[in-house]
């Protein structure tokens, strides 16, 4: 609480040979507390769910922004609300179920009852019992509604903010990111289900991971082995003007320009094997469904969302923080409401690609944990971000760490780290 800002005084270094981030950002509680205040409860929009998860009036889900528990609910008029999941009496967690349908939210402790718009409607024993006790005349129920967050819904994605002053969502995201949301959420979706995975590492290691197109074909050998994504593939790395968000996009053909080029690029890669064949190759047989024919789109939205399109595997991934060394990923996979049966089957098969046991995502969990475990005693040492030149911003290739630099520039800005981190 109110930790001194001195730990932030040291400058982060952006030299021509690399942008350096001190490892203590992943381990030190001071950073964690400041992030909760200045990022998750600060001037940002956080993803909290899909409106397709709450189809009916009265539907609710509980989730968290950073580590602050919130309730997302659709009131009796169909309006979406997001509240802090905190009883206004003495602070009990108001909703304990992860999902449900309710007419009101009733606190179990003393049964204060809130309607779905957050208004306090009932206080048992408010007038006392047999003329004794009761709330004082000055107690006005109108002053004890739930803490409501700002809410904006874009193409069915629900975002919430604790800030009264943050720019409107569309401005926060920028045109290019809004265009990708419109591209993927172009019609009603059908939810396939969730995965939830606990990762024993800092949430920012995942923020780096999803802004890192360079690791794709190196860590995830399924990619290069089966040609879902290769570094020889054409693609681009887009960043919004603020460099908070990124869009990594690979175009359809993963075929190498020539076999010899492929061999050259991957000559140092362990167990890369173009000879390996699947017994059931139907997992790789998709159906083009976007005009741009992109096979891989990884759209990281600051601070807690990732939107993915990997072939026909569509998902949102929400990060929920638990501690400086623990966070959770909630994946929601979806298709479209008008998918035919074959398309539903394609998406089911391709769901094997992602999630806690995903063929191209299992390793991300491991990569994060081995970094966390190793840097714990080396807080003053730094990583080095240099691939693709030491700069953020859009480039017309994917062999870059630029989006990660963009993340850190913004991180430093939100936490007011003080150093001029731009080159």
């Amino acid at each position, binding site marked *: 609480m109110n930790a001194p800002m001195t730990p932030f005084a040291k400058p982060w270094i952006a030299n021509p040979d690399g942008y350096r981030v001190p490892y203590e950002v992943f381990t030190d509680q001071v950073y964690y507390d400041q992030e909760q205040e200045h990022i998750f409860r600060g001037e940002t929009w956080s993803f909290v769910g899909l409106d397709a998860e709450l189809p009916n009036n009265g539907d609710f889900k509980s989730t968290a922004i950073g580590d602050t528990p919130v309730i997302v609910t659709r009131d009796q008029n169909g309006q979406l609300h997001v509240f802090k999941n905190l009883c206004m009496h003495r602070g009990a967690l108001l909703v304990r179920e992860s999902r449900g349908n309710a007419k009101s939210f009733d606190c179990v402790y003393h049964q204060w009852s809130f309607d779905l718009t957050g208004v306090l409607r009932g206080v048992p024993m408010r007038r006392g019992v047999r003329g004794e006790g009761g709330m004082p005349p000055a107690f006005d129920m109108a002053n004890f509604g739930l803490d409501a967050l700002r809410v904006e819904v874009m193409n069915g994605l629900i975002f919430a903010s604790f800030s009264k002053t943050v720019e409107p969502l569309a401005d926060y995201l920028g045109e290019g990111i809004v265009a990708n949301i419109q591209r993927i959420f172009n019609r009603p979706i059908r939810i*396939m289900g*969730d995965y939830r995975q*606990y990762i024993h590492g800092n949430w920012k290691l995942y923020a780096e991971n999803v802004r890192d197109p360079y690791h794709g074909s190196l860590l995830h050998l399924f990619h290069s082995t089966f040609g879902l994504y290769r570094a020889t593939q054409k693609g681009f790395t887009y960043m919004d003007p603020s460099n908070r968000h990124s869009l990594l996009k690979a175009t359809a053909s993963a075929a190498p320009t020539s076999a010899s080029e492929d061999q050259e690029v991957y000559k140092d890669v362990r167990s890369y094997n173009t000879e390996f064949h699947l017994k059931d190759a139907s997992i790789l047989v998709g159906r083009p469904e976007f005009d741009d024919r992109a096979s891989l789109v990884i759209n990281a939205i600051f601070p807690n969302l990732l939107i993915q399109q990997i072939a026909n595997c569509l998902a949102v991934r929400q990060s929920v923080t638990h501690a400086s060394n623990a966070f959770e990923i909630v994946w929601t996979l979806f298709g479209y409401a008008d998918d035919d049966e074959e398309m539903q089957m394609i998406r089911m098969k391709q769901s094997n690609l992602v999630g806690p046991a995903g*063929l191209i995502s299992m390793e991300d969990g491991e990569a994060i944990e081995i970094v966390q475990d190793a840097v714990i005693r080396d807080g003053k040492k730094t990583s080095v971000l240099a691939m693709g030149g030491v700069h953020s911003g859009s480039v017309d290739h994917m062999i870059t760490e630029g989006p990660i630099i963009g993340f850190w520039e913004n991180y430093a800005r939100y936490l007011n780290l003080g150093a001029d981190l731009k080159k």
Partner: protein
Amino acid sequence: MSQTITAAHSAAIDALHTAYLAALDKGDMAAWASTFAADNARYFCISAENDHRGLPLALMYDDCRGRIDDRVSFVTKVWVGTYEPYRTRHFIQRLSCEAAGNNQYRLTSGFTIMMSAEGGTTAVLTSGEYRDLIEIQGDGDKFRAVFRERRAVYDADVLPRYIVFPF
């Protein structure tokens, strides 16, 4: 229907369960795959949360025999070196068994999986329920039980780590 199982079939089913657990506890993926019917079999690993919500999404969705074999290759070939080795101990108890005709039985069993990471302590990975369609193949005194379908419905809302081996 539950009374219709013979002692010999029941023993074959027990042997199948034992073979399955022994395979996974040894990390022997080929032996795991060989507990499934050779021609046509399915393996699904799904969260209780999705199952309760009536949603199809599975952690592992192997809807044909070929994908069960491919999962062996993913673990033993593609993923080699990328995951932290861990060992498991599976424990099960049978909850119900019903004859389903054609030498087939529907079974449910509770399971617990303990996990020991290399250099670490032992912890519960998850518990859950197996929902099986088991077939007795062969006749006379030479028969064995195989899975036509195994559906592992795991209880953990949040998995404690990434997952390499099937449940």
